[in-house]
């Protein structure tokens, strides 16, 4: 019999025991030896290259290897939770590098900051999946045959099988067996009659099997695992995601240049971007109060948007934290929000050198926010401003400000001002959120003689030395959207459903064989025997045999009364 499962599967070989072709085991199912259990290949003589390859393949697809690889996978996943990962926590990695300058290069060499795409992690799961495929294919073939096969012949001796019981009846043996067959069929078993005339005594029996769904479920489950990996590994290459900060009143257009940052998948093609625009009309945030600490806690964020797909009418839409906006095959997630004060900078000539909404990055729960203004067009010298925005400013004992609440109860903008070379003309990309003040002269705040400037909405402050003026023109809010195109989602979902369904069937559908046998004893009465055999975990087998026997006997009883 072709092994349906790896040779070190607990059941390997054992399942032959109730098969008719296996004379010895059917005469005594409990007595088997190692030779009959698919271990013969170990004593193969010389192995050629092909032999070695087959040997290696068999090792790789054995249960033990699968088990070890699974355990290895679990262990290998641990380090990724101990040190920050570039994908999920890039800032953490930078911080780690600063904190552990010695250790960092070593760990980085071991790909500890990219564990889940590292060579070692990938090899483990790829081996596991090769093993898995090597496992599924022969089992599928075997199961396909089993699905079309008839239940095997009734073993000669049932006594030592599970749930064995016997009884004596006055019913005619043939009728009794026909009755048992009907009963089993009714219970969803596949049924086959086996009658024999051995040693002069007539034996009538039915052999029944059920629970093919168990193996089907197991195969579906394992195949769906391959499906998940396939979707994640291959289909994800067609996806992309990008981030965009949008200030109230502004729009985003879905072209490459429209994104602040963009991560294309391996097979991404720019022409696959559907042109559409998203305009942020307004943003609402609601806050509640933590009863114990009195701190403000966010209740709800909602971005009111207008979207327009080319060639269609504009639509009003909302995005909330757990409710992304769906547009043209993309999802737009509301990830962050904050304040974007409109800052106007006048240079020494009195001209407007800069006037824009500047998104400030929130630093705490009360939205104390940090921002940078770069004014390359200011004359005679470029200007750079670094400052804080406090939606609800309160002065602390130290004289510093803090924000008391995330809502704009008393908005305050403070700036340190620098003049000189912003260093953006050399074409080196610089973060818009950082100002390199190395080559610049402090003008106000910090080391400068003049104090830092403080502005409330609508206010304008002159800079020292006639360098110009800064105005807090207006207060706006911004949201940051994470825009995804993920073609794997649907596939992963489908495969996940198959995983759960397959698993449930594989774990809970009992697969078993039942036999009912009738022989005519010397006193001409009929001896009925019942027994079962579990294939896989089957805690209810005994009960099943017992119930069958009881129902069958009751059936025969009522028949004889008729």
């Amino acid at each position, binding site marked *: 019999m072709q092994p349906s499962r790896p040779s070190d599967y607990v059941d390997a070989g054992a399942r032959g025991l109730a098969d008719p072709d296996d004379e010895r085991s059917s005469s005594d199912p409990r007595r088997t030896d190692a030779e009959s259990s698919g271990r013969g290949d170990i004593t193969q003589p010389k192995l050629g290259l092909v032999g070695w390859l087959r040997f290696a393949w068999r090792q790789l697809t054995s249960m033990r290897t699968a088990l070890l690889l699974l355990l290895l996978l679990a262990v290998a996943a641990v380090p990724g939770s101990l040190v920050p990962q570039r994908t999920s926590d890039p800032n953490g990695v930078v911080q780690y590098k600063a904190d552990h300058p010695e250790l960092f290069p070593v760990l980085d060499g071991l790909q500890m900051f990219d564990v889940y795409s590292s060579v070692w992690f990938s090899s483990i799961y790829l081996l596991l999946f090769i093993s898995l495929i090597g496992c599924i294919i022969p089992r599928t073939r075997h199961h396909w045959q089993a699905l079309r096969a008839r239940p095997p012949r009734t073993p000669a001796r049932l006594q030592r099988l599970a749930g064995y019981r016997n009884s004596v009846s006055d019913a005619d043996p043939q009728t009794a067996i026909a009755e048992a067959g009907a009963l089993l069929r009714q219970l969803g078993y596949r049924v086959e009659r086996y009658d024999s005339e051995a040693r002069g005594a007539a034996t009538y029996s039915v052999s029944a099997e059920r629970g093919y769904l168990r193996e089907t479920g197991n195969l579906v489950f394992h195949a769906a695992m391959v499906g998940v990996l396939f979707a994640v590994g291959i289909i994800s290459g067609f996806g992309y995601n990008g981030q965009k900060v949008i200030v109230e009143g502004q729009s985003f257009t879905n072209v490459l240049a429209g994104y602040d940052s963009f991560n294309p998948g391996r097979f991404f093609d720019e022409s696959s971007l559907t042109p559409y625009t998203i305009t942020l009309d307004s943003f609402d945030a609601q806050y509640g109060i933590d009863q114990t600490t009195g701190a403000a806690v*966010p209740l709800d964020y909602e971005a009111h948007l207008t979207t327009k797909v080319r060639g269609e009418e504009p639509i009003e839409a909302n995005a909330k934290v757990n409710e992304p906006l769906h547009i043209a095959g993309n999802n737009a997630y509301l990830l962050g929000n904050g304040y974007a004060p409109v800052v106007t900078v006048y240079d020494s000539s009195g001209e407007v050198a800069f006037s824009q909404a500047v998104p400030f990055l929130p630093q705490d729960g009360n939205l104390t926010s940090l921002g940078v203004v770069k004014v390359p067009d200011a004359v005679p010298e470029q200007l750079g401003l670094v400052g804080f925005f406090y939606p609800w400013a309160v002065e602390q004992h130290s004289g510093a400000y803090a924000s008391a609440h995330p809502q704009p109860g008393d908005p305050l903008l403070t700036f340190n001002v620098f003049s000189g070379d912003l260093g953006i003309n050399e074409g080196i990309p610089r973060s818009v959120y950082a100002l390199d003040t190395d080559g610049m002269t402090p003008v106000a705040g910090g080391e400068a003689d003049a104090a830092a400037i403080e502005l409330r909405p609508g206010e304008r402050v002159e800079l020292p030395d006639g360098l110009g003026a800064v105005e807090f023109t207006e207060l706006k809010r911004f949201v940051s959207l994470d825009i995804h195109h993920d073609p794997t989602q649907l596939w992963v979902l489908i495969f996940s459903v198959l995983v759960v369904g397959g698993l449930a069937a594989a774990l809970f559908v009992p697969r078993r064989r039942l036999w009912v046998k009738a022989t005519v004893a010397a006193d001409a009465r009929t001896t009925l025997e019942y027994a079962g055999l579990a294939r896989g975990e089957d*805690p209810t*087998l005994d009960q099943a045999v017992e119930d069958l026997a009881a129902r069958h006997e009751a059936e025969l009883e009522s028949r004889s009364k008729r």
Partner: protein
Amino acid sequence: MNVNAELDTISLVLVYSAMAVYTLAFISYALDLARRSADKPAKIDGLVATDAGGAPAARSSSVGAAIGTASTATVARTTAAERRGEGAGRAVREGREKGSPSLKVGFSLTVLGFLIHLAADVLRGIAAGRVPWANMYEFSLTMTLIIVGVFIAVQVKQDLRFLGTFVIGLSVLILGVSTVGFYVSVIPLPPALQSPWLVIHVFVASLATGFLALGFALSIVQLLQYRRELLSLELQAVKLRFLRSLPSAERLENLAYRLNIVGFIFWTFTLIAGAVWAERAWGRYWGWDTKEVWTFIVWVLYAGYIHARATRGWRGNRSAWLAIIGFSAILFNYTVVNLFFKGLHAYSGL
């Protein structure tokens, strides 16, 4: 003080009451275990008789399987062992009302404690105006409730009251630590947690934990029982005696497996529900966030456990160890990862 805060206070009082009742239950269960090792031969329940006859047979068959010579492990199981197992099950079913007085008292107190606990949890939910599992305190409250609930519920199918010390001990411990250490008054739900998936994901995770906790306890008893079964009869009379009236190691293993696979299904579902939710909230269904990593690790460990049960030479003690490691990872995930690891799942509310 508004109504909700008042309800919350009542809830807290109920939590303390439940803890008191559970503590009494714990003591009763412990007395029961002590009684089991007491001198006079126990004729408590059907399990005794079966154990006496069944243990040696079980040992020989599991040893055979372990060496790998008996390729018929399944058959041996399904015939001798399983029949015996089911026999024991029936004996227990018939003798449901049996059990030492302290065991009965312990179980009644457990049910009483559960009802108080349930009331506490429901009140907390009403006070918060949402499901009561949005921060570490609430999550502990609900998780222990579900663990005890699962413990009570499985008794319908299988008498596992002897695990009372473990289950109630664990629950009281978690409840105690979290009321003292993690208590926060009702705070509104942050936007990221406002999702029906919170309800599903966390509830199913707790359910899984309830089943896996029982499997874990059974695996520990199994290992002890195995050691006892290896002892000579004279030594059995003096060592690990409280195990005398408990099922055989092999039977314990089968019971543990049945609970663990139920837990595993729920855990699988938890993982998927978590991914769906992560997709909604953060725009990706999987990002190897620390919490996700540990949920994955637990899942893979239990997949390993299930494989071990089907791999020659890995049944018995080795697979029991895997179940124990798996549950330890759950506890780790719930305690250390929640409290000390950095990640997006910062919902401990501390």
